[in-house]
């Protein structure tokens, strides 16, 4: 399958009072046309920064894209003129954020915000744009769409606000939707409905890049997964492989730590220790201090991502052919 978007060696840094943090450190991956790719990791691993970096939504300063290319349909988004990039954002690539209330303008009615987005990218009469927007509110399951067009975001529930965001993200038939924790703030029953809707709306026409901390969500929504730890990719695989045979000790630990539906008190398998500070990453593998399988080489050398199966890569010496000898 042809790659719709390919990221090569992306690195993003932030200047802080304590020093420079490399939030994304040499990340490379590709999103294929029509596929749903998940990016999982715990807080601070760089997953959201990666997502924002793709369309240069990093505030600079303090942020800075240090290196890399983001090839989207033959164009490098990192080099594109701002004007051309704007034509891509919100049109060919759209985003759904975790908090709809902070992503929508509190001062403008829903209808105005939707029609504005249409008018920005397409020549359409105001009336036609309004009708089009309204039809999308209906499609995303907002009851009484006509009167909701005149509502302000705060008048809607969290689930409804997120539906508006989704309408906005999907109505212009984008090639790629980047969704950063789109349901984390929602109840599970609402989440299930939002996911069912996103799946139905996309119908393999659109690629999805879903950023989440929740393995269950990835399982529900994605074809392929990238696992990030401490600013780097540690594993990537198709969804079945990742869950059946995770190769990186971090991925294995993460899977084991998820509380499964159980019947009463049950000690969980945790990952000891904590994520190292980005100001002070250790030499060698960044997971070494928490890894149950650590050995000498991990403390001195950086494991690179290597292929360890069909469409399966991991950054761990244990999957190296020479087992790190």
């Amino acid at each position: 399958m042809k790659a719709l978007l390919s990221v090569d060696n992306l690195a993003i840094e932030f200047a802080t009072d304590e020093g420079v943090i490399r939030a994304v450190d040499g990340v490379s991956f590709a999103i294929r046309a029509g596929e749903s790719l998940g990016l999982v990791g715990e807080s601070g691993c760089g997953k959201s920064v990666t997502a924002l970096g793709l369309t240069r939504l990093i505030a600079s300063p303090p942020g800075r894209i240090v290196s890399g290319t983001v090839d989207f349909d033959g164009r490098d988004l990192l080099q594109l003129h701002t004007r051309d990039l704007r034509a891509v954002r919100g049109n060919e690539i759209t985003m759904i954020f975790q908090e709809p209330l902070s992503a929508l303008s509190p001062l403008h009615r829903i209808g105005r915000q939707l029609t504005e987005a249409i008018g920005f990218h397409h020549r359409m009469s105001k009336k036609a744009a309004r009708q089009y927007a309204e039809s999308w509110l209906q499609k995303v399951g907002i009851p009484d769409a006509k009167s909701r067009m005149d509502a302000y975001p705060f008048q809607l529930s969290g689930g409804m606000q997120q539906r508006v965001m989704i309408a906005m993200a999907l109505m212009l038939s984008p090639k790629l939707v980047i969704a950063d924790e789109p349901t984390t703030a929602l109840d599970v029953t609402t989440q299930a409905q939002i996911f069912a809707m996103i799946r139905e709306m996309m119908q393999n026409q659109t690629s999805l890049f879903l950023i989440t901390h929740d393995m269950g969500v990835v399982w529900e929504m994605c074809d392929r997964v990238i696992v990030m730890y401490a600013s780097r990719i540690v594993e990537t695989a198709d969804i079945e492989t990742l869950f059946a045979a995770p190769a990186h000790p971090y991925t294995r630990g993460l899977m084991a730590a998820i509380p499964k539906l159980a019947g009463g008190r049950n000690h969980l398998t945790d990952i000891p220790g904590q994520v190292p500070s980005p100001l002070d990453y250790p030499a060698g593998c960044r997971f070494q201090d928490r890894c149950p399988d650590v050995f000498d080489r991990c403390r001195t050398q950086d494991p690179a991502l290597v292929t360890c199966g069909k469409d399966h890569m991991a950054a761990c010496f244990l999957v190296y052919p020479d087992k790190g000898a």
Partner: protein
Amino acid sequence: MRKKNAPNPAGKWDPANDFLLEVSDLKIWFETKKGLFSGKSQRIRAVDGVSFSLKQNQTLGLVGESGCGKTTLGRTLLGLETASAGDVRFRGRPLLDLSRKQMDQMRRHLQVVFQDPLSSLNPRMNVMDIVTEGLERFGMLQGTKQEHARRLLAEVGLDKAMIYRFPHEFSGGQRQRINIARAVSLRPDLIICDEAVSALDVSIQAQVINLLLTLQETHHLSYLFISHDLGVVSNIADQVAVMYLGRIVEAGATAQIIGEPCHPYTQMLIAALPVAGQKRAESAQVKGETPSPADPPPGCHFHPRCPKAMEVCRHTEPDQTRLRDRTVCCHLYA
């Protein structure tokens, strides 16, 4: 005054046989103004006739989605909200009628861990002062402050050398450990955990859950574990109560409720949970949104979303029914 081994204020409460906490028909209503300039007020029934009980060394998981009243319930037990009706007995004593002074004394037995570990720690106090504040207040300090603080830190898995550090110097998981250390410092009978692990990453969340379980084993604690996360609750609670719009719709032993949910809402909640590795659930089973607690539907609050709703559900509130191993509030089982 120093009160080592303070006498049991209840006198006749027997921890081995009696319930530690008994909540009967608790109602917590709020009056709010309808609009900014409207004189009309409306009543929000945040908790609307809830009953449950909890024994020593047991954990009750209170699950439900946002707005179901679970947090309000916890806050009321702590004396942070006022109950409108009902009865709560803790260690055999009525909790709701206590004077402020009596409640302060009772807090030694009743502690809390909140969701946000940072906002529940005073940023100007170091860890030693935080975890020993209650001990000093109740005259329960053993040895020097430093010694006692070090013991507590060790007990919750923190480096003993950290006693002079301040909350901002810790990670989220470590801060929650400090909160837990403070909560267990007074050797309470009950700790109310309100979304205590919800803000933590999975790997850290598992550590904190394990810590809570270990502390329970050592100190025979009881937890009222309030959470929206059924997965977490099912790993920590002996009993589960599922709340929907101010009422408990189903309650019983965790394994039974999770394994074979009876109430349609519990079934929906479990079906909606994305479980890695299992066949993807048909989300069609989930419909509608939780109505506002200010304007709940008549009859069974769940009927507009219920796939099995009958005529009777639309106008008659279902009673609690004892069903084999559990209680259910649903006309299907009446």
